[in-house]
């Protein structure tokens, strides 16, 4: 039996590994830019599906179905992003006689509309974040939205109905900012999801983003897992996630998991999904939305429960019964923290840093999980998300996990492109992070207050070390030694160099 993996990067690698472990064949797909990508190299088969832009390759439903047919794949795993929450794709797979590794197209459609999802939560008796019940179409007059916002009260959040991953989302502090925010959210939503519809939600005070992973089989079993805390966000994008939450009491965990299971049951949910909640400063929790797919941050749950979520996705899709017990799912052993490693320069406002990975050394050893989608020699394309890897650390306690994460981050080396590793080295030293005192506004606030101050504090001794290393590196280069970063390797490298040389403001 073969699985078509309709994705790229680290999540395609993750799925390939789960397939291998289950004895399933793996069919990868790739665009022009990804011919030498790690997910291609690790798969049994790899099919070219078009030019580099995602809309011409990873988002082409017809092309993917052609590959499934030609390769003889009978299951399709969409990963996250791309077509993972596209009900048309899920339905097209089923119509083509394929098994879609995910919920039904109906469930995707229903929960994909943020407003319909709110209705489902309300029907399941779960409290939702206060806000507008109905969405505003692309051409709904601004005045009506402004009036509704006035009624709900500021601060308010403008959100894309089809949204996800922080796209098409704007927080508005005062009425004057609302019209610009509406325009920005609509434009971003249209370009990201092809749907400009938006809605409004009240911004809670001190909100934490805490979510419940679900697994649901086709035999009526729905399981809620120990929560994930995902409040460390930059521009509504999660950057650090952990499980369990540093603050959630055990009874709240059980109540939240029970609510999540009720919502899933309400919509006849199957396979893996996640219910996101906001928890306010008083500890009350509110349904926020459902992600009808595997989450980026699923490894932290796997590490504290020992349950392989991706294997279970594949097993459930093949009709197996869930045998994980609620106790296993809800009882974390230790603590796990994930950092999303982006090819971005944290010292230049997180500007993307695509280019050639000239050399790479990822951390290893006890309690470290290295989920990466790149290998040395790969040129990180400009066409896709800049997340190149996830680093997850496990420890017996949260403090142990942080110490281990800090250790692992110091071992991380990516030669050729900038990554967010220095930012994570900074955040693991912040008192708010160490003490678990943060909400979803924390990171943006502290970043704004830093006024672009670099994350890496270069002492005089560091500068001196760097100067010596550079001089010696130049000496070795002049003497014919090829260290990873000092040689020259043709086109790809020159392209990367051009970016670096021209980056940002010239003068």
């Amino acid at each position, binding site marked *: 039996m073969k699985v078509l993996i309709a994705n790229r990067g680290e999540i395609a690698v993750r799925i390939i590994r789960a397939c291998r472990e289950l004895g399933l064949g793996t069919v990868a797909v790739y665009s022009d830019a990804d011919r030498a990508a790690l997910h291609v190299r690790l798969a049994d088969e790899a099919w070219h599906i078009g030019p580099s832009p995602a809309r011409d390759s990873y988002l082409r439903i017809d092309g993917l179905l052609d590959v499934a047919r030609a390769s003889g794949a009978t299951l399709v795993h969409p990963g996250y992003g791309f077509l993972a929450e596209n009900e048309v794709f899920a339905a097209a797979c089923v119509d083509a006689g394929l098994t879609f590794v995910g919920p039904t197209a109906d469930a995707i459609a229903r929960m994909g509309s943020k407003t319909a999802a709110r209705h489902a939560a309300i029907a399941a008796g779960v409290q939702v974040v206060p806000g507008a019940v109905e969405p505003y179409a692309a051409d709904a007059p601004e005045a009506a939205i402004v009036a509704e916002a006035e009624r709900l009260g500021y601060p308010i959040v403008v959100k894309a109905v089809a949204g996800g991953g922080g796209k098409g989302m704007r927080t508005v502090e005062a009425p004057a900012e609302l019209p610009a925010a509406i325009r920005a959210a609509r434009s971003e939503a249209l370009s990201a999801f092809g749907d400009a519809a938006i809605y409004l939600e009240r911004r809670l005070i001190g909100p934490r983003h805490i979510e419940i992973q679900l697994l649901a089989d086709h035999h009526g079993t729905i399981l809620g897992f120990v929560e994930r805390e995902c409040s460390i966000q930059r521009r509504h994008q999660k950057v650090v996630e952990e499980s369990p939450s540093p603050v959630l009491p055990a009874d709240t965990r059980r109540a939240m998991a029970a609510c999540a299971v009720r919502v899933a049951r309400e919509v006849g949910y199957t396979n893996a999904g996640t219910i996101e909640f906001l928890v306010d400063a008083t500890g009350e929790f509110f349904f926020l939305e459902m992600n009808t797919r595997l989450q980026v941050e699923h490894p932290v749950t796997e590490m504290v429960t020992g349950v392989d979520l991706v294997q279970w996705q594949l097993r459930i899709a093949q009709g197996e019964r869930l045998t994980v017990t609620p106790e296993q799912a809800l009882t974390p052993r230790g603590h796990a923290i994930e950092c999303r490693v982006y090819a971005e320069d944290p010292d230049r406002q997180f500007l993307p840093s695509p280019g050639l990975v000239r050399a790479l050394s990822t951390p290893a050893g006890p309690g470290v999980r290295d989920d990466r989608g790149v290998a040395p020699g790969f040129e990180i394309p400009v066409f896709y998300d800049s997340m190149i890897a996830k680093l997850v650390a496990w420890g017996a306690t949260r403090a142990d996990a942080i110490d281990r994460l800090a250790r692992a981050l110091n071992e991380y080396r990516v*030669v050729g492109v900038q990554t967010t590793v220095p930012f994570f080295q900074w955040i693991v030293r912040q008192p708010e992070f160490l003490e678990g005192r943060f909400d979803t506004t924390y990171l943006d606030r502290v970043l704004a207050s830093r006024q672009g101050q670099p994350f*890496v504090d270069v002492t005089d001794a560091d500068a001196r070390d760097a100067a010596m290393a550079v001089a010696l590196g130049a000496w070795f280069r002049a003497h014919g030694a090829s260290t990873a970063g000092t040689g020259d390797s043709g086109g790809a490298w020159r392209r990367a160099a051009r970016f670096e040389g021209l980056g940002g403001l010239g003068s």
Partner: protein
Amino acid sequence: MTFEIDVGGRVRQVSVEPLGAADGSGGRFRVRVDDDVVELDARPTDLGLSLVTAERRVVDAALTALAGGDWLVELPHVVVRAAVDGRRSRRAEADARGAGQQRLVAPMPGRIVRVLVTPGDQVAARQGLVVIEAMKMENELAAIRPGTVSEVAVAEGALVEAGRLLVVVE
């Protein structure tokens, strides 16, 4: 060999002299940094260089030679940008000089999502000029210093190559 190495605006004179059998595969070196002379052991690695100083301190440095004489040095706890032989990094230079024309170029290929200024606008330091979409993110490119916009060279929706001039601030 002697180099001028600029880290964060401070220029050091660094000279490298191999000792004994040191060659391309490594060995002992005498390194002079301004007026200090140190001896150390240096070896190329898969990532860059491994140094052991006279005090036995280990400096395992990942090195990336960037265009224009800049180098990126990754130490375990810190990433440092350095420039060799008088070619101080453009950014550092722009930061340091604190005056003159600023020419904003596209740092990567992408799509111009929004142009936030028009010619004649007064802009503050760190004020956004243009929003470019690349790697699925919208990235705001900002002015480094205050000034007046003298030219806007792109329109919203344009696809631009890396290096393309976007905005000029005087």
